[in-house]
C-alpha cells in the first residue's frame, strides 16, 4: 500500500491532519496567551536571576579589566621566578590609573581574597607610587615592601588573569588551586564550609524526620475525624501559616531561652536545678525545634490530601480478612500514603536545606546553616560571586536530591493535593 492512499482526507479534500491543526490553532494560541503572564513572570523573577547568579559566580572580569597591561605582560612569564621589569612597569602603570580613579580599593579586596595580607602591601604601594621616578620600576616597587620580592604575590595576581574562574566553587567546599595550579584542600582548621554543608544536610534530614513523625498522626486524625472537629484541627495546623515567620521565631526565643518559659517550667517541676538550666537556644536544639514547628504544615498538608482519598473501608477490609490492626496498617494503609510521605518529605527537606531566617535568629554559632553563610557573604564581606557560587551549589544539591528521589520513588507518585 502506498503512503498516498493511507492519507485520510477531510470532506473538503484537505488532509485530515492539516485540517485538524488548523482547527486547533486558535485554541492553542489562546492557551498560550493565558500562560504567557506566568511564563514572563517566571523568566524575569527566576530564570534571569539564576542565570545572573551563575555568570556572577564564575565572572572574574573585574580584576582582568583593572590590570590589562599587567596581564598582557605576564603572558610570557612562567611564574617560577620573579617577573621581569616589563611586568613591573605594566603593573605600575595599571595601578597608577586605579589609584587616580579611586578604584584601587576593589583591587586590594579582590587580591586579598587570593593572598592574605595583600591589602596592606597594595595600600602602601598606593601611597608611595606618587613619588616614583621613571624607569627601573622593579627596583622601586620592591623597595616599597619586601613582599614584592616574594614570587607568591605575583602568582596571586596572575591567577586572576582569566576572565572566568571556578575558584569560588572550590572555596565553597574548602578547596583552592594552589600556586602550582593543583586543587588542594585548605588547612584543616579553616574548613568551615564543609562543616556547614554537612550540618545543613543533617539539620534538614532530622527536621524532615521530626516533621514526618509528628505530621503523620495529625494528618491521619484530620482525614478521619468528623467534619466539625477536623475543621478546627485544620485551623490549628494552619494558624502558624497566618502568623509572621518572625513573630513565630521570636516566640520560640521567649520560650526556649535560659530564663524562658520552658526552662522555668523544668525548674518548677524539678527536672533541672535553677542554676543548671539547659541551653535550648543559640544551638542546634533551637534550630531543630523552631524549624520543625515552622515546616510542620508543609508535611501535614500533602499527607492529609493523600489520606483523605483513602477509603476507610480499606482498613476495615484488611481487618475483616484477618489482619490485626497493626498488620492492616502497615500492609494496607501505610503503602497507600507513600505518595504523600514522598511529597511532604521532599517539600520539607528542600525548604529546610535553604532555610535562613530561623537559624539566623535561634541558631547561634553551632546552629547556623549554609544559607546563613551565603547571607553573610552577601551582606558583610560583599563577596557576591562567592555567595552566588554557594547559592548555585545549594540549588544543584536540591536538583540532585530531586533526581535521586525520582529514581527511587518516582515523581509521578508525588501528590501535593
Amino acid at each position, binding site marked *: 500500500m502506498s503512503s498516498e492512499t493511507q492519507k485520510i482526507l477531510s470532506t473538503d479534500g484537505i488532509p485530515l491532519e492539516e485540517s485538524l491543526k488548523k482547527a486547533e490553532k486558535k485554541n492553542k494560541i489562546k492557551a498560550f496567551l493565558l500562560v504567557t503572564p506566568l511564563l514572563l513572570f517566571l523568566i524575569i523573577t527566576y530564570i534571569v536571576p539564576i542565570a545572573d547568579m551563575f555568570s556572577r559566580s564564575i565572572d572574574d572580569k573585574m580584576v582582568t579589566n583593572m590590570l590589562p597591561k599587567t596581564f598582557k605582560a605576564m603572558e610570557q612569564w612562567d611564574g617560577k621566578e620573579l617577573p621581569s621589569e616589563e611586568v613591573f612597569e605594566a603593573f605600575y602603570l595599571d595601578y597608577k590609573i586605579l589609584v587616580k580613579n579611586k578604584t584601587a580599593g576593589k583591587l586590594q579586596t579582590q587580591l586579598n581574597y587570593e593572598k592574605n595580607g595583600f591589602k596592606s602591601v597594595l595600600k602602601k604601594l598606593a601611597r608611595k607610587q606618587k613619588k616614583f621616578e621613571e624607569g627601573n620600576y622593579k627596583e622601586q616597587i620592591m623597595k616599597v615592601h619586601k613582599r614584592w620580592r616574594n614570587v607568591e604575590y605575583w602568582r596571586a595576581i596572575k591567577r586572576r588573569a582569566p576572565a572566568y574562574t571556578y575558584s569560588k566553587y572550590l572555596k565553597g567546599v574548602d578547596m583552592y588551586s594552589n600556586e602550582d595550579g593543583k586543587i588542594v584542600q585548605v588547612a584543616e582548621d579553616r574548613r568551615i564550609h564543609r562543616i556547614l554543608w554537612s550540618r545543613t544536610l543533617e539539620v534538614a534530614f532530622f527536621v524532615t524526620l521530626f516533621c514526618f513523625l509528628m505530621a503523620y498522626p495529625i494528618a491521619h486524625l484530620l482525614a478521619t475525624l468528623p467534619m466539625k472537629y477536623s475543621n478546627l484541627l485544620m485551623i490549628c495546623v494552619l494558624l502558624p501559616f497566618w502568623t509572621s515567620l518572625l513573630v513565630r521565631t521570636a516566640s520560640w526565643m521567649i520560650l526556649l531561652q535560659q530564663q524562658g518559659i520552658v526552662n522555668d517550667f523544668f525548674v518548677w517541676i524539678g527536672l533541672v536545678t535553677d542554676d543548671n538550666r539547659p541551653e535550648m537556644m543559640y544551638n542546634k536544639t533551637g534550630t531543630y525545634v523552631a524549624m520543625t514547628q515552622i515546616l510542620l504544615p508543609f508535611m501535614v498538608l500533602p499527607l492529609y490530601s493523600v489520606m483523605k482519598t483513602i477509603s476507610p473501608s*480499606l482498613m*476495615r*477490609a484488611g481487618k*475483616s*480478612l*484477618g*489482619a*490485626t490492626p497493626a498488620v492492616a496498617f502497615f500492609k*494496607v494503609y501505610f503503602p497507600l500514603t507513600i505518595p504523600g510521605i514522598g511529597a511532604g518529605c521532599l517539600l520539607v527537606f528542600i525548604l529546610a536545606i535553604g532555610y535562613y531566617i530561623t537559624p539566623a535568629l535561634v541558631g547561634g554559632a553551632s546552629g547556623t546553616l549554609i544559607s546563613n553563610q551565603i547571607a553573610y557573604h552577601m551582606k558583610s564581606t560583599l563577596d557576591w560571586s562567592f555567595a552566588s557560587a554557594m547559592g548555585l551549589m545549594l540549588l544543584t544539591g536540591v536538583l540532585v536530591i530531586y533526581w535521586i528521589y525520582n529514581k527511587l520513588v518516582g515523581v509521578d507518585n508525588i501528590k501535593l493535593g
Partner: protein
Amino acid sequence: MSKKEDFVKFDKVDKSYDGKVLVVKDLNLDIEEGEFVTMLGPSGSGKTTCLMMLAGFETPTNGEIYLDKNPISNIPPHKRGIGMVFQNYALFPHMTVFENLAFPLRVRKISKEDIEKKVDKALSMVSLSEFGNRMPGQLSGGQQQRVAVARALVFDPSVVLMDEPLGALDKNLRESMQYEIKHIHESIGVTVVYVTHDQGEALTMSNRIAVFNDGKVQQLSSPDKLYEEPVNSFVAEFIGENNTFAGEISDISNGSCKVKLDQGEIIANPISVKSVGEKTTVSIRPERALINPKDKMDNNQKGKIEEVIYHGDHTRVRLNLLGNSEFILKVPNSSQNLDIKLGNEINIGWNSHDARALDPK
C-alpha cells in the same frame, strides 16, 4: 451434615450512636447455617448498622450477637473469621488481584503452595483465572466486584457479609452478578448475610428476607411469602407494587371483614385488625385484580380508566376506583383486552382473600 439452626443469632440487640436515638431497636434474628439472608430496607433503616455489628466494626449498645453459639461482642473483627464484601469493593489498590486474594491467607501464615492453590481455585470460581497479575484499577466494575467476592471467600469463612455489593454496577451487569453470587452460594454452601435496598435483588437471591424499617425487622420470611402475604402496610408498600384503600372496619367475622371507605365498601381479609371500628389500610396487588372476571369474585367494582401505559409484555392501567385515582392494574397483553381505552368504564373484580386489611398507615 445437619445444618445448625441459629448459626448467627442477634439477641435483643440495640444500637445507638449518640445516646439519644436508637438506630436498631430490640433486634432478634436467627440465621441458619448455609442460609442466604437479605436485610432489606430503605436507607437509614439500620440494616447496614446490623451488618457492621456482625462484622465487628460497631459494638451493640445492648444485647449480644452469637456466632455458632459463641457471643462475639468482645471479639475484634480480625478474629471473627467473617468474610466481607464492601460497597465499593475495598480492593487494595496497591496490590495485584493475586496479592489481594492472598492477603487473608498470608496473614494466616498459610504455606506458599497452599496459598497459590486456594487463590487459583477462588479466581476460577469467579472465572477470572487470567487476571491474577492485573491491578484492581485495570479491571472493570464487574470484575472488581468478582475479585471482592473471591477475596471474601478465599479463606473459607463460615459467614460472608455483603454490603450492597452490586450498588455501583449498571442494570444488566447487576442482574447477571445476582445469579452468579447465588450460584456461588449454592455451590459452596456458605452462610451469606446480604444487605441491599433493592427489593428485586433481595427477591431473586435470598432464602429469607428481613425487611428493616425504623430500626426494626418488620417481617422475616421467604421471598414469596413476603410478596404474597405482607404482615403490615410498610412491607406491602415496600415490596412490589401495591394498591391501597384507607378505611374503617364495619363488620368482622370468620376470616373476612367489611371495610367502609369514603366511597363504598369492600370485603377484605383481616390480617392485623381485630374489632369493628378499627382504622385499616387494605392492600391489593395489581395483578390480583382482574378486568371483567369470568369466575365470580366477592369484590366487584366499576372504575374509570385514567391512563394507559404500554409496557410491551403487559399494559399498566391506572383507574379511578372507589375514590382512589391511583389504582393500578397490570394487564397481560393478549388480543382480548380490547376495551382498555382512556375514559372507558370497566368492571374490576378481586377475591377478598387477596385484599389484606393491615394496620393503618
